[in-house]
């Protein structure tokens, strides 16, 4: 390798060509390459400018840890703050984070796109025209706080305790807002859970009150997923890492999904079961485990309430464990492999092969269901209950390589102040007829209001986009447009979205590097916390600058909820409401708490953290600011088996007192007395009694199919990735996945249009021929199809421009005027968009289908497919909200008909309820106690 040629040197000397430096012919690496800079160098990390290379231009960075905000996992990120410009230039992983271990999915590094989005909302806005008109005026934070505080105060002063509510999509924090709502004295917490996981949660909680699994994939022998955790979902990155570790160590992967997800593509067994039949499959495997004698006798004997079942349903039998096993085998004998194969429509050989793998997994069976079949089908909660049954039978509950309750690995912060529980029960969130609903009946809020069951004075939507993400979005538009239904709507969001278009106030809240949160998630065995912090605020602090409020350092006036809630709560209270006392500093007598003090206190309570911090000469908050994460417990296995000292506490097992499970019996409840008491005796024990709304028996017509809408793309999250250009260029449309056999029958070909009719409307989408989906099922991802109307702003990278027409009498029509168009901005990339197709908003045509038992919205839709008629174009949508209301009434009726309240209880007293009100409110007709 030589230097420059003579000709070049002469040319440069004669100024015929400019002088450029010599290229480097070898590297300066001084040994094996390393992954992360030493934390001691984070304050002053030097990197060479990537684009100036091969010129060596040094850039100095301060690396400040935070966590990603693009799904629930809160993976660690390091923000690279350029010391010259004072802004964040990129995000990499945080090696200290025990969940993500320095690695991220695509959404992590794409955070910089969201920070730099040229269409971000930078200032608080208030509508200046009618709701939904798209006319906005900029206001100050002071105005926003005063006006909103006034409205809340007015509502509270009427004595009402359920007319101010907060509806959250992505919480991203542990316990912060629940405490605020309690301080206000309202039963006002609503969430997105019942369109997400409440089906699975009920199934799990029936067993042990814990409503979420934490599989130990890395150590498993068999990994059984009805999720797609190598592709998406949360906890996507942390789980994918460990699923792959397990597989590389020899674990067998079984994936159950009618669609070949990326996860199924890597599986040893892909079982494309007919949606909703999974319970039959699992119960068949349960029977195989029993038949083969592969059950964990000790665990069943010690830790399952088999005696309660015998006493209740087999009182005339010997009340022995041996008899229990015999009766168990009888009970599940109907679930033969042949039955399962027929119900699931898969080969019986596959049922048997996968079943044998599961049976032989012993204590190392890690299983997961979260959304998928549990949220897709009527009775989907049976799927989770049957799946956990397999863990119970194999004795893999909380074992190494098994499946633990997620609560064992999740840290619940001790906060500086705990106001009393709300003195009300909000029946718009927990209507009486949904006695076992796990989480709020959020998806029927518009329908309950339309049904005259209540209205709201103040309604916050927070990182939450129901108009678009939820089924029957036009009903949401109707509700949000009506000032009688919703007095004041405040959207707290990092970006524009379809719901914010219908708000009264749009308040920009910070993204991953622009806010404070404490995170703790059960990504593996082991308990950790992580700290999401406004990195520029921390950087300013390092430089010795004082920052009072986060909006001083964020772009524009973007703020964060933690400080917003403190200020708002302070202003709500005119001195008579007793709210301010819950926002007092724990360190300075009589002063309002600051966000730094909030976290200072919170971190000081974390076991082991103050000690670890002291070892580095820091306090607890200082440690978290520096490292971004802390491992509290290395592993969290078998907590039920820990001894408990107190004679009154825990449960007796084999003569000793153990922690047990937080159920009435202290054990795994195979037999659920609550199911019986609340009017569902047929569900006393796990069974396959409820058929899905898309069971083949319910698809009678030749042109009737099952639509599978609830799958995601690996690089997107529901609403807030629309402005991440690097994610959008990888995925922006959602054609209909259809098996060629079905396409042939319908007479459509690749790229042609298909009309999909649901119970309440229809949409027109493009055909995607694929062998990756079960015939009879068609798939369309509900991650795509974003839109804005001509008067709306934001997200030009991913939104189609649509026209929405309210034709009256509940009839709505949406037409796509244009696809995605390039546009001019400060970012040259926005004029280089090579894509046009923004997909179709299918969710809005879905009828709400609230499961009467779990309350979960059943996502799968029975649809009729045909070719569109003349004048029905790509992206056209029609919905009849009167039809959707009647449909809701039909499903709601199923709950009303079976409504039973033993002892006047609204719901089982032992069952979880977010923001649980005071005890007497748990009883009907005792609210005025």
């Amino acid at each position: 390798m030589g230097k420059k040629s003579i000709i070049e040197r002469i040319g440069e000397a004669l100024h015929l060509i400019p002088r450029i430096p010599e290229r480097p012919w070898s590297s300066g690496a001084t040994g094996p390459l390393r992954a992360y800079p030493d934390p001691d160098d984070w304050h002053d990390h030097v990197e060479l400018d990537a684009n100036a290379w091969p010129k060596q231009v040094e850039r100095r960075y301060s690396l400040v840890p935070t966590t990603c905000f693009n799904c629930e996992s809160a993976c660690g990120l390091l923000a690279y703050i350029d010391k010259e410009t004072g802004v964040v230039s990129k995000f990499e992983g945080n090696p200290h984070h025990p969940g993500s271990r320095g690695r991220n999915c695509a959404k992590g590094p794409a955070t910089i796109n969201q920070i730099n989005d040229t269409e971000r909302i930078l200032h608080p806005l208030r509508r200046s025209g009618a709701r939904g008109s798209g006319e906005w005026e900029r206001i100050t934070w002071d105005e926003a706080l005063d006006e909103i505080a006034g409205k809340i105060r007015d509502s509270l002063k009427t004595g009402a305790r359920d007319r101010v509510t907060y509806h959250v999509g992505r919480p991203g924090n542990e316990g912060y807002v629940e405490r605020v709502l309690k301080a206000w004295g309202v039963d006002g917490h609503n969430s997105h859970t019942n369109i997400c996981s409440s089906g699975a949660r009920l199934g799990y909680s029936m067993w042990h009150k814990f409503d979420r699994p934490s599989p130990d994939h890395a150590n498993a022998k068999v990994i059984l997923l009805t999720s797609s955790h190598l592709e998406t979902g949360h906890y996507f990155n942390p789980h994918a890492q460990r699923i792959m570790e397990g597989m590389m160590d020899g674990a067998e992967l079984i994936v159950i999904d009618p669609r070949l997800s990326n996860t199924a593509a890597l599986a040893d067994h892909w079982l494309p079961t007919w949606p909703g039949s999974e319970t039959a499959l699992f119960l068949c495997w349960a029977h195989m485990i029993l038949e083969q004698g592969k059950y964990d006798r000790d665990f069943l004997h010690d830790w399952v309430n088999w005696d309660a079942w015998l006493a209740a349903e087999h009182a005339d039998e010997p009340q022995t464990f041996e008899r229990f096993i015999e009766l168990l085998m009888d009970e599940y004998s109907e679930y033969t492999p042949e039955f399962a194969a027929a119900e699931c429509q898969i080969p019986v050989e596959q049922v048997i092969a996968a079943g044998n793998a599961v049976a032989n997994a012993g204590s190392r069976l890690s299983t997961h269901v979260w959304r998928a079949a549990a949220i897709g089908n009527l009775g989907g909660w049976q799927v989770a209950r049957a799946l956990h049954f397999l863990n119970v039978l194999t004795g893999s509950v909380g074992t190494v390589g098994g499946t633990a309750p997620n609560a064992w690995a999740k840290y619940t912060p001790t906060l500086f102040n705990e106001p009393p529980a709300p003195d009300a029960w909000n029946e718009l969130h927990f209507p009486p007829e949904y006695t076992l609903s796990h989480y709020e009946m959020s998806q029927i809020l518009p329908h309950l209001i339309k049904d005259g069951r209540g209205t709201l004075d103040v309604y916050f939507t927070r990182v939450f986009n129901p108009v678009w993400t939820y089924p029957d979005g036009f009903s949401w538009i109707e509700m949000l447009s009506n000032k009688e239904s919703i007095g004041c709507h405040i959207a707290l969001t990092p970006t524009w979205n379809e719901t914010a278009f219908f708000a009264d106030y749009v308040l920009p809240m910070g993204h991953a590097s622009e806010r404070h949160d404490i995170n703790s998630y059960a990504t593996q065995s082991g308990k950790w916390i992580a700290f999401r912090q406004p990195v520029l605020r921390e950087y300013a602090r390092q430089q010795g600058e004082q920052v009072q409020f986060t909006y001083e350092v964020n772009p524009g006036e973007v703020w964060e909820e933690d400080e917003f809630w403190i200020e708002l709560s302070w202003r709500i209270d005119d001195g008579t409401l007793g709210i301010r006392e819950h926002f007092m500093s724990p360190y300075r007598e009589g002063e309002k708490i600051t966000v730094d003090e909030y976290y200072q206190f919170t971190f000081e309570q974390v076991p082991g953290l103050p000690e670890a911090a002291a070892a580095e000469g820091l306090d607890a908050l200082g440690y978290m600011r520096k490292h971004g994460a802390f491992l509290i417990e290395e592993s969290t296995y078998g907590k039920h088996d820990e001894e408990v000292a107190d004679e009154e506490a825990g449960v007796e097992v084999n003569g000793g007192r153990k922690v047990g499970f937080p159920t009435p019996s202290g054990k795994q409840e195979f037999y659920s007395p609550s199911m019986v008491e609340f009017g569902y005796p047929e569900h006393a024990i796990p069974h396959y009694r409820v058929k899905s709304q898309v069971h083949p028996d319910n698809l009678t017509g030749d042109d009737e199919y099952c639509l599978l809408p609830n799958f995601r793309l690996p690089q997107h999250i529901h609403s807030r990735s629309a402005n991440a250009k690097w994610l959008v260029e990888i995925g922006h449309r959602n054609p209909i996945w259809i098996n060629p056999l079905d396409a042939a029958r319908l007479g459509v070909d690749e790229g042609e249009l298909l009309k999909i009719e649901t119970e309440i409307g229809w949409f027109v989408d493009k055909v995607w021929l694929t062998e990756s989906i079960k015939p009879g099922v068609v798939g369309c991802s509900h991650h795509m199809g974003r839109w804005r109307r001509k008067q709306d702003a934001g997200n030009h990278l991913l939104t189609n421009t649509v026209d929405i027409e309210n034709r009256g009498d509940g009839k709505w029509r949406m037409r796509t005027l244009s696809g995605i168009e390039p546009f001019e901005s400060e970012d040259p990339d926005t004029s280089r968009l090579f894509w046009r197709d923004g997909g179709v908003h299918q969710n809005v045509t879905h009828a709400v289908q609230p499961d009467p038992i779990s309350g979960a919205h059943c996502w799968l839709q029975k649809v009729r497919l045909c070719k569109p008629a003349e004048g029905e174009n790509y992206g056209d949508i029609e919905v009849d909200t009167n039809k959707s209301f009647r449909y809701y009434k039909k499903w709601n009726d199923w709950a009303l008909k079976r409504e039973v309240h033993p002892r006047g209880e609204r719901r089982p007293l032992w069952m979880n309820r977010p923001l649980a009100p005071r005890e007497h409110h748990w009883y009907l007709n005792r609210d005025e106690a």
Partner: protein
Amino acid sequence: MTNYGFVIDNRKCIGCHACTVACKSEHDVPIGVNRTYVKYIETGTYPNSGREFSVQRCNHCEDAPCVSICPTTALFTRDDGIVDFDSDRCIGCKSCMQACPYDALYIDPNTSTAAKCNYCAHRVENSYEPACVIVCPTEAIISGDLDDPESNIAMIISEHTVTVRKPDSGAKPNVFYIETSPEMLDPLAAPPQSTGVWTDQEGGVGHFASQAQALLHAHGYGDRMKDVDEENARRVYDTPDKGVLWGWEVSTYIWTKAIAAGTYLAAMLYWLAFGGDISGILLPVLGISLGFLALTGFLLVYDLDRPERFLYVLLRPNWESWLVKGAYILGAYSAVLIASLTVVWFDLGENWLAWLAYAGIPLALLTGVYTAWLLNQAVAREAWRSKWLAPQFAAETLLAGVCVLVLLSEEMLVWVIVAAVALAVLAAHQRRTIREPQLVPLS
């Protein structure tokens, strides 16, 4: 001596695109172009359907064709095996994109210069891993020194069967794949489509980013998208197509160059070898040759994405590249033409012309033919590697020259028409020669 390479372990790749985005972030890569990306194919019939993912990027070849063809050594192979690039030297000729068998390069629309994965050389400089290696959730990308038997990467290669993309390219790629199917590695097994499972492409990228608003059909993109062959594998996700990179400018300059070279060549041969009389058309012959040579030069510079840097071809030369050799040949040939014109203008005598022709005739032939050797160097395009390309160009040069002579001297209309038609057919044929091979998918 360090020899950096990659292993892509496709037992572990989950197709999540984290590497794609981490790289975008590290280098601020514009929309539409990629230094690394993940290709998806689907195979089989339900229920035996399958999907595979594979990461593709520059292979840091030991015998990199892009380095050989780059006229200005903007692309260069380092001692440590990294094939790096210096965008200050790049003139945007796009020869590298014709030479890379793996379609690893792109034109950055911000700078109009070529770019590709450079192994994060700026990070390696400080002993850090490339950005894609660190982000991968399943650690499916392994980097390191291939020549160090104790290194992780070397041990992985020795313990597993590995394959490479297009082993017969001659480039000796240093990105090794574990458990990657032939259907994935062979670009023709699952040809590109115009839509993917989540994507569509309706505008240009990279070199054609300015055409983001317009369809790419004008640049030959539309023809490239073959119909899905459902019997074989199907490509379901891919990065956008870059289109035809050497378009009308290149095929036209080959035509004008054929005329520039052929006219003088045919005339001189007719006079010196066959004793023909060209005295009446000498000035037009020289004028047309020089004029079309100037036009050729203009088109050559016009085709560059950084035309103001055209002098780099002469003054920052990579002698291995036929772009450089050709530029000097054009220079020498134009000198001969200018000298010959001077002789004729000032009536210095035909002996001088004959002496000049001793240099001029071979130079004219080389002028007409050298592009074939340049195309031979563009090893990505199978059709251009043919040994018949040079004789073809020689014949075309002569044919062009003869046609021009006919047009200049012939009086019978039918021959004039034949010559004009032949020139038009020649132009169409040259357009096809340049365009068609660029429609064959490389990745």
